[in-house]
């Protein structure tokens, strides 16, 4: 049998796990009602269990005490008995499908925000500020230590009473337990700091108390780091010593191991490795821990592919693999392996849209899978065939919106024709994938391409659809997803001209697509501060250009998420790209062979100039509306999407109201530039009822 190692059950404490695949703890940001697990939450985990995941560890960083704030990021609150019945729903939903579910419990100490809800005073062993959350805190007192130890036991009791299968004590990502462990933040001289035993004490007391509370028939695991990657932090050897020390108690049922510390922007980026990282970059650290402990070891971090997982397990590096984002992108991953549909797995591309939202306190969503965590709204991962009439659907534009629309319509059983002006589908994803270390984003397109082929969608590549071609197909539904163009005409002084030879500025797309050769001295003006600007800078620097990237915003790349901008910065600084903020591009003019860019300080109005040979402007996308307006009048719905129906995930009334002509809809950037997720979400919710 293929994937034998993957499908070999394993015993963790009192529980048998049906396979070796774990969705490790992640903060979902779905526990809205004062930290209670909502219907959305339950359905999200039920889907993973239904899809075959062996063990779900839910509730990343769920809090045990009220001075570990959860309100700002809607994490699960185990500090009250009110949670117990909610857990029962959750446990039932997962158990029903043969899955197991545990929860990560923690006190985050200094690693949170205090400015909201109860306005808590954060606690930490030595009151040292945490930079990622800009959080200040007090030095914890012994009374508080004992209170929190007790809170841990009560949280564990609630998990057990709620029918969950276990708890994972978080001693990773710089929470309170590992704040005590790490000499970097624990400067205490009392019995809670200093020597190894003293630094271990808090975690040990928590472990003993929790075990005493829950007994032996309930799993208690521990998640630890394999190496903090700080010169003054815990090293791999330290961590081996710590793991062995706790393991010797016989009270820990498993260890989860994460590579890297997490309390600076730069280390944080390691923890949830984005697409610039190689596969399983920190496996060796988990393996190292496995050498010194006697219980199963779980490791997650860039394990995305079933073959990769099988190889890791077969090699005996660890006992279970976390495939966490892999499950966010496709909760049916295991089912698809078992069904022999590996090609149909939507593989996580490491865009980190999920985690980057989480760090802003926003609900976790997948860039490419709009159904994830929206199961409760009736958005399906597996689209059922329509029982209604078979429709002729024409989709124009093969970017994210168009690909998703074509896929969903085809899954519904309709006859779909997809037009794409380029020779390949993908739209802006294709452009984005040209930047260094961003090639994996094209995985989104790769999946759509396989699906569209499988679904036998008629794909007219290299074909620009016009009014006549569309009319000829006698469609019932026309979906426009034609995207747009770089918006370089907004400021006439920039000197943009459609003729590249005459134009004083070029777009980031021109650069990334290789339409314009890299200049020697390049100024990039990026007012958007998302991926395109920094990607173009990285691309040019990689090709040997001297690059300065300027923005009138806070900082170049400011809108790139928390786990992604650090890897851009690593690359840009290394290539000596100059990053300048607070300057707007006022004007560009030609002087001899050179271009002069006039920059204006946002705050003083002072002008300064740069003499360069290429000016690249990133000013977002201007929607392409021409085709829409040429079709609009002829359509039965005048191009209007009923947004009430759309937002309620209900069928569009115009499809059943009768009337003349085709129904016309617009999706994605051809309406207004938003992002990939928005485009895919709209396409899914619009088309799922066609």
């Amino acid at each position: 049998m293929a994937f034998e190692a993957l499908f070999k059950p394993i015993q963790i404490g009192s529980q048998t796990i049906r396979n070796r695949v774990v969705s490790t703890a992640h903060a979902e940001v779905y526990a809205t009602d004062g930290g209670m697990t909502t219907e959305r939450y339950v359905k999200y985990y039920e889907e993973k269990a239904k899809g075959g995941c062996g063990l779900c560890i839910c509730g990343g960083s769920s809090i045990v005490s009220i001075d570990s704030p959860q309100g700002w990021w809607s994490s699960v609150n185990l500090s009250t008995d009110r949670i117990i019945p909610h857990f029962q729903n959750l446990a039932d939903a997962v158990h029903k499908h043969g899955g197991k579910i545990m929860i990560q419990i923690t006190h985050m100490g200094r690693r949170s925000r205090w400015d909201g809800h109860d306005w808590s005073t954060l606690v930490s062993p030595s009151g040292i500020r945490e930079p990622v959350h800009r959080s200040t805190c007090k030095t914890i007192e012994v009374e508080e230590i004992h209170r929190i130890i007790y809170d841990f036991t009560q949280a564990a009791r609630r998990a057990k009473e709620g029918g969950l299968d276990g708890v994972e004590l978080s001693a990773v990502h710089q929470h309170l337990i590992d704040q005590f462990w790490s000499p970097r933040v624990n400067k205490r001289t009392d019995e809670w700091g200093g020597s190894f035993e003293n630094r271990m004490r808090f975690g040990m007391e928590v472990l003993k108390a929790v075990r005493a509370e829950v007994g032996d028939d309930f799993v208690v695991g521990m998640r630890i780091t394999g190496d903090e990657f700080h010169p003054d932090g815990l090293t791999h050897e330290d961590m081996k010593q710590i793991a062995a020390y706790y393991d010797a108690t016989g009270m820990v049922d498993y260890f989860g191991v994460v590579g890297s510390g997490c309390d600076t922007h730069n280390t944080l980026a390691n923890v949830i490795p984005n697409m610039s990282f190689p596969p399983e970059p920190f496996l060796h650290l988990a393996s190292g821990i496995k050498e010194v402990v006697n219980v199963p070891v779980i490791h997650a971090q860039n394990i995305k592919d079933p073959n990769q997982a099988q190889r890791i397990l077969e090699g005996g590096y660890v006992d279970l693999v976390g495939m966490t984002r892999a499950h966010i992108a496709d909760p049916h991953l295991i089912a698809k392996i078992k069904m022999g549909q590996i090609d149909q797995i939507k593989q996580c591309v490491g865009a980190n849209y999920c985690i980057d939202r989480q760090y802003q306190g926003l609900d976790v969503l997948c860039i490419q899978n709009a159904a994830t965590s929206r199961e409760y709204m009736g958005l399906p991962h597996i689209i059922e065939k329509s029982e209604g009439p078979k429709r002729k659907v024409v989709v124009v534009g093969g970017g994210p919106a168009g690909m998703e629309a074509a896929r969903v319509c085809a899954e519904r059983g309709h006859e779909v024709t997809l037009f794409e002006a380029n020779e390949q589908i993908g739209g802006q994803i294709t452009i984005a994938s040209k930047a260094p270390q961003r090639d994996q984003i094209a995985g989104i397109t790769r999946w759509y391409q396989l699906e569209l082929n499988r679904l036998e969608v008629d794909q007219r590549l290299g074909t620009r659809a016009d009014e006549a071609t569309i009319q000829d197909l006698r469609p019932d539904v026309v979906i426009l997803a034609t995207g747009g163009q770089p918006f370089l005409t907004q400021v006439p002084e920039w000197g943009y001209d459609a003729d590249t030879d005459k134009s004083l500025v070029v777009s980031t797309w021109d650069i990334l697509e290789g339409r314009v050769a890299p200049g020697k001295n390049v100024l990039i003006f990026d007012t958007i501060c998302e991926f395109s600007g920094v990607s173009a800078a990285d691309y040019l620097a990689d090709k040997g250009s001297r690059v300065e990237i300027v923005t009138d915003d806070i900082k170049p790349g400011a809108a790139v998420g928390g786990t992604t901008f650090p890897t851009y910065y690593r690359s840009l600084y290394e290539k000596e790209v100059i990053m300048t903020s607070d300057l707007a591009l006022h004007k560009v003019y030609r002087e001899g062979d050179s271009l002069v860019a006039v920059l204006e300080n946002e705050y003083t109005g002072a002008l300064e100039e740069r003499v360069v040979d290429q000016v690249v402007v990133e000013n977002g996308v201007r929607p392409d509306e021409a085709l829409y307006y040429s079709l609009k009048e002829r359509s039965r719905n005048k191009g209007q999407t009923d947004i009430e129906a759309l937002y309620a995930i209900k069928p569009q009334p115009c499809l059943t109201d009768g009337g003349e002509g085709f129904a016309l809809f617009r999706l994605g950037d051809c309406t207004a530039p938003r992002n990939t997720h928005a485009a895919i979400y709209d396409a899914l919710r619009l088309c799922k009822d066609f």
Partner: protein
Amino acid sequence: MLDTLLPILLFSALALAAIGAVRRVRLWRQGRPSSVPVIKGLMQVPRRYLVDLHHVVERDKYISHTHVATAGGFVLAALLAIVVHGLGLDSAILAWVLLAATTSMFIGSLLVAKRRSPPPSRLSKGPWMRLPKSLMAFSIGMFVVTLPTAGILPEGVFQSGVGWFAALVLAAVIVWGLGEMFFGMTWGGPMKHAFAGALHLAFHRRPERFSDATGGEHRSTGLKALKLDDESAKLGVEKPADFTWNQLLGFDACVQCGRCEAMCPAFAAGQPLNPKKLIQDMVVGMAGGSDAHYAGSPYPGKPVGEHKGDPHGPIVAREGTTLVDAETLWSCTTCRACVEECPMMIEHVDAIVDMRRFLTLEHGNTPNKGAEVLDNLIATDNPGGFDPDSRLHWAADLNLPLMSDKKEAEVLLWLGDGVFDMRNQRTLRAFISVLRAAQVDFAVLGTEERDSGDVARRLGDEATFQSLARRNIQTLSRYRFSRIVTCDPHSFHVLKNEYGELGTPQTPADYHVQHHSTYINELVVAGRLTFKAWKGGSVTYHDPCYLGRYNGEYEAPRDVLRALGIEVKEMARSGYRSRCCGGGGGAPITDIPGKQRIPDMRMEDVRETGADLVAVGCPQCTAMLEGVVEPRAAIKDIAELVADALIIETAAEKSPQRQEAPATPRPALEVTP
């Protein structure tokens, strides 16, 4: 003159026939001994002929009528000719009856002639082409010589002038007719089938397969056990003379009608097997000589005339060629389509497995993956070589009740080796959810279960089969259950039909075994399952050989589908004529190449019905049919279709939010892959 000549001719023909018969019997007696009740067997011939054999022949109405007219006419005419013309009993009444008999025979022979002009490819040519003419010669000759006796022509008409000449011609015609009918019958002509056929019916090695006056099911499809304790005995069949004498007799009964050939999936796929040719080769081997005179379709890709054999020479050469090539034997899927169709009740599959036994046990020569699979079975008790402790890995989340814990259960669920296959695990999960929905008291053997031995046995490895079977029987003997239910027709067949012989007084092995479709049907009839309305597309059903032809279960799966609201679109070849999926008999393991693949042909049968889905009831069929490239119909096991349609009544669940909610039917969500 004819008055004197006729008795001489008749009795010399009979005498020659008798000599031929003795020689023929000698040929058969070269085979190994096999004790049969001689008198009882002979007494059974009329019933076996008129009921059982006719049941098969009747499937082809044309030839059935033809045969009744010709054979009935001939038997009567021959008896009366001996009385009237041989013994000279001058009875006008008998003569009239004789005239009627020869007329019937003549009409029959015209029909035979018509069928053969031109003959369909499955029929052999050669001497068989002259048979209709011989039949005519006999019937016309006898008719004409009888006219005077009946008083239609004056007595003495053949005695003068022209009469003399006519008499001479007539005598020649009669000699021809008698020669074919009497002499040829025992000296190897086409009429041999009548002689050998009748005795084959009498001394058939599977008397259980014939009906008796009490009615009921008469089926004998289990392979017979090989006695392994006798160290000196040769294992399996190496030479023609290693067959039992009544097997040789059976081969000799073949009429070369080619019905087996027309049904054989391996032949149709262009693999080097033709069951008719194989039987003829056994005849060639028994008598000694080459296959050059064989006048039917050859083994695909193997011209005739290159093989020869003798009764005491090896059938399969270790090197070079003798009578049959090994790949011919390894092409067979043991689907029994040939046996099912054979009007002469010949047992091809027994013969093939007998010869395979020798190749595997004495030569150790099982082609392609064969040796590996057998090694795996020996080492791990499963063909894939998986860790035997991993048998229940797929079900870690199902909490299956174990026999070792429960000791007794209403149903012992036999899982089969499909537990190691992800596709089949889905079927098993589906069936388990059905059992749970019907609240059946069941348990599994878990890691105590071993491969049933089916594949080992069909690959000729009788030793491994018996070892597996005996250990399974031991295990089963420890528990109490009222029936065994399994989703695997191969396990089903072996447990039901082949274990019995290996039981002992302490551990009897006569179980009540059911295929899951039969059991589900019982649950449906008992009202223990409720279904949602069927919403899928059109459905056809593929009969697994080991469920249908081997065990006669054609109706239960169809009844279950009907209960789901599905109207089955039958394939042209369904029921007892179902075409094998190609997965039986270890054929996918020995993997003998042909021009096309058997499952492709089967999916083509499916495509012809226009069905969107083909329902199956066998892990092997599922695997074979799903291996066919898309686009093709979807493939689902009956258990999956049932599970998908289940409505499970659940009590209100225990959470506070749901406490007030009334019990509501919900679909069976447990059915996850």
